[in-house]
């Protein structure tokens, strides 16, 4: 069944969307969008190092993304520069170092565009196995650690006082994000990975009354974006990765037309309690 490139792309993309939706909810709730971007940008450095050291690329990307997250944690403890500035430094310098290193590679020809914007139509059976094995592991961790992860997101202080470990939750989420980046890079590229985490989750908010609903809805919307985007790219011969993101954006814009008052959880302006 998965003999043609288009079916493989669909299966791979759907697998990624099912994982990115629920995890993306945490990214939105915890305001980690820029953080996710930073980790994603470091993926190119991971690619370059994997090629230089001849190690598995998924593992290399994961390791570098996790290291960048760790570096940020340590720098935050120093409390000198703001997190915002630190993220800016890490994000762009890791991307730049990655690009420079790729330039040094003379033995391998690197398809830079493929890494920056993804090449979902080139996924192999092996890639699909990695996506689904990794995806199932990520979803299983989210499922079993859901309550402490959510409690820590609502209030780290409260979770801690009642015997949970919000620092551990934070670490788990960072590792999961590094994993998603590692498996998503080939599909949508380092520049677009975070959009798959954030756009479906942000769209799901208006359609959900509970965190769990939002996670499920985000997964479904992600699948719609992948399927719609891939068929769109096939029809109009557009770049596949960006087409998926454009489709996610279209779903988001359409969702804005849904009257929220008819749904649960009306928006309170200025973030204050009415």
């Amino acid at each position, binding site marked *: 069944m998965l003999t043609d490139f288009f079916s493989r792309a669909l299966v791979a993309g759907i697998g990624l969307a099912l994982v990115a939706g629920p995890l993306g909810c945490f990214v939105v709730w915890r305001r980690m969008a820029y953080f996710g971007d930073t980790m994603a940008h470091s993926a190119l450095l991971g690619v370059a190092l994997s090629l230089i050291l001849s190690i598995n690329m998924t593992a290399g990307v994961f390791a570098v993304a996790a290291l960048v997250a760790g570096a940020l944690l340590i720098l935050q403890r120093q409390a000198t520069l703001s997190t915002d500035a630190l993220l800016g430094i890490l994000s762009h310098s890791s991307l730049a170092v990655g690009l420079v290193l790729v330039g040094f590679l003379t033995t391998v020809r690197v398809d830079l565009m493929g890494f920056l914007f993804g090449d979902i139509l080139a996924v192999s059976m092996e890639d699909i196995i990695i996506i689904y094995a990794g995806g199932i592991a990520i979803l299983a961790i989210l499922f079993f650690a859901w309550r402490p992860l959510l409690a820590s997101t609502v209030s780290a*202080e*409260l979770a801690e*006082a*009642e015997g949970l470990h919000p620092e551990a939750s934070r670490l788990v989420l960072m590792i999961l994000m590094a994993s998603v980046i590692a498996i998503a890079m080939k599909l949508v590229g380092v520049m677009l990975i975070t959009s798959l985490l954030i756009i479906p989750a942000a769209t799901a908010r208006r359609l959900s009354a509970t965190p769990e609903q939002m996670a499920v809805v985000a997964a479904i919307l992600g699948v719609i974006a992948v399927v719609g985007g891939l068929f769109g790219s096939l029809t109009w011969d557009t770049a596949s990765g960006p087409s998926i993101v454009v489709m996610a954006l279209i779903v988001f814009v359409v969702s804005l037309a849904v009257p929220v008052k008819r749904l649960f959880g009306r928006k*309170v302006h200025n*973030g204050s*309690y009415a």
Partner: protein
Amino acid sequence: MDKQKLITLTNAGVSRGGRSLVEGVDLSISRGEIVTLIGPNGSGKSTTAKMATGVLKPTSGTVTRMPGLKIGYVPQKLTIDWTLPLTVDRLMTLTGHFSHPQVEMALEAVGARRLLGAAVQELSGGEFQRVLFARAMIRQPDLLVLDEPVQGVDFSGEVALYELVRKIRDTTNAGILMISHDLHVVMAETDTVLCLNGHVCCRGTPAAVKNSPEYRALFGERAAQTLAIYEHHHDHEHEGHVHAH
């Protein structure tokens, strides 16, 4: 000792980077006892509470907790971002699993049952505080920790919340640890007030602390004069008032 000690701090303190946050705290809480920590910002109230709950380890002295101590925590301020859809119903089971009847009963106990399906972002300050009380109480904690319980609640709301604290103490026999920087407000039922400023300045019943020279030195004469102690019965409050001039 007829009452079981839930928590005992002995000469406990925390210092970080060579700087002492709080030191020499002696404090114990038994079942049915209300202990209030007061002090200005940075006086070590939160640090002391965190030592008590086990979030922070003391760097000096000792802290002992009853084995298996269950803590219910009512945070000072909980701002839940609009991006996180959360109903009261769902908030109730944030840190543990409880059945629907349990959730309804806990909300009923604080008079907030009608809020069951409401989004937390829609609640008023007082309503949210009640829901947070219910959330902490559904765990049937041995110790209830209240961090600035009446902050952002109007005067009548304050009185109602203190009634609630009293009711919780009487019906569940939980120990209660309250933290307050609002020096004007101390519950009359508080068994012990600890006045902190990097160390324990003074301690005792609310009335004793109010009249102690250390309290006056720390917070000034004016604060002492305006310190209101919530009494259960307000029918005698106008007796014996003498106006100067």
